[in-house]
């Protein structure tokens, strides 16, 4: 249930930003979520929907931009993968380093002013 804290933070940010821009309603929220965060989209959406009930963000659509794992291989450079891996997706060599895929941020909101 670690999505609960994330959903609650998303709602807080959305409501305070909407308020700051004197918006009446938040219609859509765009998020960037790294796959290393192990966020279950369905669970996040369910919790957000529940928390947002009765607020200006009720019924807001969550647009989740999934960030892949970023892998750096000495030979092949940077690759991306859908999940954590210990070998280069291109040359299959082990010992690559994982340098990204843990983002968890709110990119933008669409609101009715």
């Amino acid at each position, binding site marked *: 249930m*670690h999505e609960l804290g994330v959903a609650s933070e998303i709602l807080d940010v959305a409501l305070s930003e909407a308020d700051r821009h004197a918006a009446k309603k938040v219609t*859509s929220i765009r998020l960037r979520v790294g796959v290393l*965060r192990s966020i279950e989209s369905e669970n996040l959406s369910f919790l957000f*929907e529940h928390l947002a009930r009765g607020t200006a963000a009720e019924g807001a659509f969550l647009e*989740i931009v999934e960030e892949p794992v970023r892998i750096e291989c000495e030979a092949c450079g940077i690759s*991306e993968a859908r999940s954590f891996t210990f070998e280069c997706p291109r040359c299959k060599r082990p010992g690559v380093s*994982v340098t*990204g895929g843990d983002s968890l941020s*709110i*990119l933008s909101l669409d609101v009715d002013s």
Partner: protein
Amino acid sequence: MGAPLPYEVRSLGYPRRRKNGGHDRCGILTRMGQGGNVRIDVERSILRSADEAAAAIRALLAERKIYALNLISSPGSGKTTLIEALLDRFDGKGGVAVVEGDIETEIDAERIRKHGVQVRQINTRSTCHIQPSRLLSVLREMDLSETRLLLVENVGNLVCPAEVPLGEDARVVLLSVTEGDEKPLKYPLVFKTSDLLVITKTDLLPYVTFDVDRVRRAARAANPAVEIFEVSATTGEGMSPLLDRIEVLRATKD
């Protein structure tokens, strides 16, 4: 047919350079979402309030020259046992304070209290990790005037504690050999963000299928700088190098 989903997941990859030199930030679409007539750019970490509390903890620790370890593992991997070993090692060498995190009960705090050190229990109830804001308020209530080493035992869980830095100087992940050697593959973030990996209960290796080298490889792939220790609290094997290392790390903050 069901109702349309209230969310959409798109995998758009990393920022790429456009041919015209413009930056396509994470492939963000320029169209509006459903409804809405104004777009507000926010670009802020969802963990910001937690990050702020962690920064306040870091400042408090720096001011008091306290070295802090955040201990993370599955339930029953040996976090409390490692803390007890550290308490024996640091007995009389400067104060150790302990913060225990559990969903419920004071069992761990009572176990630690017998060693005569300052200990606080955080019961997180429905939350699966220690929140930095909670740790900060506990630390503010404690008398840390003599404390040189702070041991924070997180809630037994390999997922959520990994996402929430507590302002610690080093993060320690424990993995017991009975849990299986695929854990770094299944829970990559905690292995990516930990400074020390302690493989525990090695006296049980003859009885379980656990490839230590596989874990070492996977952990190194997740974090090339990780320091790996193999210990058995039961036989004492491997404990000295780990305790020595923690003593050296603690001294870096003197």
